């Protein structure tokens, strides 16, 4: 139904690619393949949920300022939520990673799903680290003093100065969360677009292999 001119339009091309790869039925399906029936499938969502709690508590902290939690009991509570949600986040992410590894979940052209997930893991470590640097307490004094040697040793310290509180707080609340957010979004969209990887032996019969 499209004319030749429409075919050449970038907007048309984008819409068609989008509709083909990620129609809204794929984005928000109400069924899943029968094999999606294990608690291990909960951990991706649990990681996302932890991230949600981290972002919400982090936003609250950022509105009050970095030193708020030292003198306000509400502040200490919000800081504690942020702290424990990070522990949950990493626990669930690692369990999710183990689960996906043992499913060999990169099968069926899902390599980029694995790659974005691993990138999110590495990026989260960096983001959490900058959080530890802006606690404005003894721990952050020590971590910045100790960690500078690692970054300086390979020249990264010239651009990423862990003893610069201003730089670390900006990276922790602006740059790094955006990076994590974008990687996570791509990861989730890839999962929805490609679907949940089938069991390793799901197609043995079709391929005429022995059990």
């Amino acid at each position, binding site marked *: 139904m499209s004319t030749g001119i429409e075919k050449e339009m970038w907007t048309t091309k984008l819409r068609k690619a989008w509709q083909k790869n990620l129609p809204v039925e794929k984005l928000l399906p109400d*069924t899943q393949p*029968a094999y999606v*029936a*294990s*608690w*291990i499938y*909960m*951990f991706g969502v649990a990681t996302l949920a932890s991230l949600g709690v981290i972002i919400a508590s982090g936003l609250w902290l950022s509105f009050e300022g970095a030193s708020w939690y030292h003198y306000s*009991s509400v502040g*200490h509570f919000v800081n*504690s939520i942020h702290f424990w949600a990070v*522990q949950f986040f990493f*626990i669930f992410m*690692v*369990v999710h990673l*183990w*689960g996906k590894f043992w499913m060999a979940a990169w099968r069926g052209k899902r390599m980029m799903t694995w790659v974005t997930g691993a990138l999110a893991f590495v990026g989260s470590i960096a983001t959490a680290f900058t959080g530890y640097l802006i606690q404005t307490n003894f721990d952050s004094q020590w971590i910045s003093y100790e960690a500078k040697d690692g970054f300086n040793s390979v020249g990264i310290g010239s651009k990423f100065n862990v003893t610069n509180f201003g730089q670390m707080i900006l990276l922790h609340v602006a740059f790094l969360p955006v990076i994590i957010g974008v990687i996570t979004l791509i990861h989730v969209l890839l999962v929805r677009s490609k679907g949940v990887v089938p069991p390793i032996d799901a197609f043995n019969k079709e391929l005429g292999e022995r059990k």
Partner: protein
Amino acid sequence: MGIFHHFMNLKAVYIHIGWFQMSITNLVVVLSMLLVFGLALVLPFPGSKKGKGQK
């Protein structure tokens, strides 16, 4: 400040074997991670016996 705030700020206890050293708290975190993984594998998933849709 947390009901067990005082307890949590006592000196940490460490397991120390040769070059290996880990605080009890970190050990609890790591073990609970392994436990959660193990449970997720073996615990039956609710409603998994009856597949609804069809082939």
